[in-house]
């Protein structure tokens, strides 16, 4: 019998005998014959040696940031992932356990979640954080539906900046379709920042939320206080979307400016890019709206002996109790990814987190300056707009073409925005992290110069 099956062939006979059966088929007698098959048309079991070889070989067909310098960002960032984080995650007590519905034997997971919630509220300057959501895109959807609920389902208009990640916006469209929400997109100005006049014109009395990303999809830091004021003027909720969570170590998050929700993607905190997942959605809000918040929540309490303990709380919001009236149909969070972020953020430490953000800022701004100063033929698309570790460049050839040429030279130069943006179709989006050494920066500059 296969090693991943607990009963051997002799066991099977004994167990069947105990049930008074002759064959295993008798256990499946209730299945109508017309739906049954006698075997699966799949290859035989592969042993570990051939499994390792086969997948190693598949990996050879893949070029990643692990092998070549990469300046890819756009919502997925290549940050340091210390071995200690992986070691913690690979403890079976964490990764082979279920959702902590039995708190007496889940205090490890629960305390880690409580620490995660605390870390996220400190970063965002908000009062409450849930225990994670699927990813940044679904976090934005949840934020919009949350705002709709908080305002008692009476305001169907959603105002969103078109510099919110285009994939997030397309996901929002999918969800908005059946709910009857009206999505209004506000364009960026020529400086890559949200056009505030257009924003104010778009906000009406039936607007439930105003969502803006900062730093935005083009890397530009938005004027958050003005956005919050514009939203609150009509009583709408202000939502700050974050895709590069590390930016919150340097830039004040929405909580500092009275935003009602700060949410997005925290993959930067120790979660692998992994070709898109699993990643880590986060959601923070104010205490007064906690009952409308989606997702799991861990709370502090005591046990029968009066000792501090933790448990999931406010679960009446969730599907297994409220069924058709749940705040969301979500059943899973990203527990292990939330743990990764917790370990990562604590490992980096409060001082280290700030230093890391400053390091990214220095690398990105050094690269940006050199692109201009060293006569590469490339320029910043928004030279006067503030940015953190990501920016859009334009040059003598289009972003798609330069990306292709750079790839031939062994550099993942950045992401051409042509597939989404009609405003800056020739742009190349470049993210710089602590993984990019100054040799990488030299190589990119050289490639850009030669290729054009």
């Amino acid at each position, binding site marked *: 019998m296969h090693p991943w099956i607990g009963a051997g062939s002799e066991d099977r006979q004994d167990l069947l005998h105990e049930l008074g059966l002759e064959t295993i088929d008798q256990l499946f007698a209730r299945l109508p014959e017309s739906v049954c098959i006698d075997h699966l048309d799949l290859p035989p079991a592969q042993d570990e040696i051939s499994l390792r070889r086969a997948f190693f070989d598949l990996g050879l067909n893949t070029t990643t940031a692990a092998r070549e310098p990469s300046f890819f960002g756009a919502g997925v960032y290549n940050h340091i992932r210390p071995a200690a984080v992986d070691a913690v995650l690979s403890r079976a007590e964490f990764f082979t356990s279920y959702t902590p519905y039995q708190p007496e034997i889940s205090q490890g997971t629960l305390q880690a979640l409580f620490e995660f919630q605390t870390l996220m509220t400190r970063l965002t300057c908000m009062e409450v954080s849930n225990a994670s959501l699927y990813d940044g895109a679904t976090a934005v959807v949840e934020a919009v539906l949350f705002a709709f609920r908080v305002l008692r389902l009476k305001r169907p208009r959603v105002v969103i900046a078109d510099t919110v990640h285009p994939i997030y916006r397309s996901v929002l469209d999918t969800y908005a379709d059946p709910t009857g929400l009206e999505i209004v997109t506000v364009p960026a100005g020529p400086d890559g920042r949200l056009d505030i006049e257009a924003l104010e014109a778009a906000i009406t009395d039936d607007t439930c939320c105003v969502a803006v990303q900062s730093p935005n999809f083009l890397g530009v830091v938005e004027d958050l206080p003005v956005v919050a004021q514009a939203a609150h003027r009509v009583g709408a909720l202000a939502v700050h979307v974050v895709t590069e969570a590390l930016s919150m170590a340097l830039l004040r998050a929405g909580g500092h400016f009275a935003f009602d929700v700060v949410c997005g993607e925290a993959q930067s905190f120790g979660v692998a890019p992994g070709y898109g997942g699993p990643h880590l959605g986060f959601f923070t809000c104010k205490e007064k709206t906690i*009952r409308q918040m989606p997702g799991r929540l861990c709370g502090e309490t005591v046990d029968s002996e009066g000792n501090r303990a933790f448990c999931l709380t406010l*679960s*009446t919001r969730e599907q297994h*109790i*409220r069924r058709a*009236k749940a705040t969301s149909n979500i059943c899973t969070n990203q527990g292990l990814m939330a743990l990764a972020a917790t370990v990562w953020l604590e490992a980096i430490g409060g001082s280290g987190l700030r230093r890391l953000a400053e390091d990214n800022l220095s690398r990105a701004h050094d690269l940006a300056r050199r692109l201009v100063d060293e006569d590469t033929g490339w320029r910043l698309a928004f030279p006067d707009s503030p940015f953190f570790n990501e920016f859009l460049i334009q040059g003598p050839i289009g972003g798609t073409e330069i990306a292709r040429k750079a790839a031939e030279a062994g550099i993942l130069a950045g992401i051409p925005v042509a597939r989404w943006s009609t405003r800056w179709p020739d742009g190349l989006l470049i993210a710089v992290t602590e993984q990019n050494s100054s040799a990488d920066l030299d190589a990119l500059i050289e490639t850009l110069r030669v290729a054009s």
Partner: protein
Amino acid sequence: MSIPQDLLYTKSHEWVRVEGDSVVIGITHYAQDQLGEVVFVELPVVGNAVEAGEEMGTLESVKAVSEMLAPLSGEVVEANEALEDSPDLVNQSPFDEGWLVKIKGSIEGMDLLDPQSYAALLEAEQH
């Protein structure tokens, strides 16, 4: 289980008491016992109109949510604000301090039970 003699009851385990031109509403001892320890009460907004038979709020325990259905139509004139901080009043004192709302209107036309009939209903439900 206690059933005060000065109240009237609904088949869905609420009690009502006439106060002038309004009706005070709460849930019975039996209802709170079924629900378990109440951790949150969502009450209707004072000044809003409610429709008989429609949801006007919710009572939450750790494991269950129960809808509060308005037993009559009318304007909400008062809601028990003490429940905001002390939802446990619903458990401790369901017939008194744990009252829920006061609705302007009369009990005329409502399908109500006197204490004896309500006691009989409970008897029947438990068997």
